[in-house]
């Protein structure tokens, strides 16, 4: 497996896992996360990272 793909995939997986944890914390206590971080923008970033991940895998 290509080094580049593994690096991008690891980054995406960890970003996704962190986002899920933060969404859980935000649901548990509203405002806890959103005061500091915009989870919506993070979600868009995840979509972009997923696309990059697919493109790297193809090439």
């Amino acid at each position: 497996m290509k080094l580049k793909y593994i690096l991008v995939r690891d980054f995406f997986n960890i970003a996704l896992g962190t986002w899920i944890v933060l969404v859980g914390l935000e649901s548990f206590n509203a405002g806890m996360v959103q005061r500091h971080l915009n989870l919506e923008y993070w979600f868009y970033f995840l979509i972009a990272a997923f696309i990059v991940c697919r493109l790297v895998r193809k090439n």
Partner: protein
Amino acid sequence: MSINKINIIYFFRYLWLALALILVIAVVFDSMSVKKTLNYRLNFHKSISPDITGWYPESRISQASFLSMDGVDLIAEPVYLKVYAPSDFSIMRVEGQISTYSPYSEQDIRLGLKQKMGDWDFKKITEKNFSLTYDLSEVKRNKNQFELILSIPSMQENARVGLVNNWQIFLER
């Protein structure tokens, strides 16, 4: 795959994991480290901050104030302010200064706190330096935020009301 490449993979994998862990711990720690009292110093020049949103609508506030000290002008009323409260508090105290050309007895300056039933718990500001205390037992919390209103129903078009940029909000358990 060479050992060098595997090392690179592990380095970045643990780097991202460490950063993610630090982020989650920082957010949780920030939320849990709430003391019995919380003090917010408001900055009227910055309408959005992590703890305070307002005054809004921004079009009703002029940043160029007639005040000789740091502050903002109220162009129209009412204006609103949201205060973030990370946990349950029983009392809120608002302190600050408000400046106006007309005597305070002629003005009907009111600061209110939104209640569960949708009405406002209004308290009158009767002097330049004021301190108002609110009971939070019936307050409406929306996403852990309280909503304040500053209303001057008798406000004329040419009236000048200045909010000195030294307001503080104290939350107590």
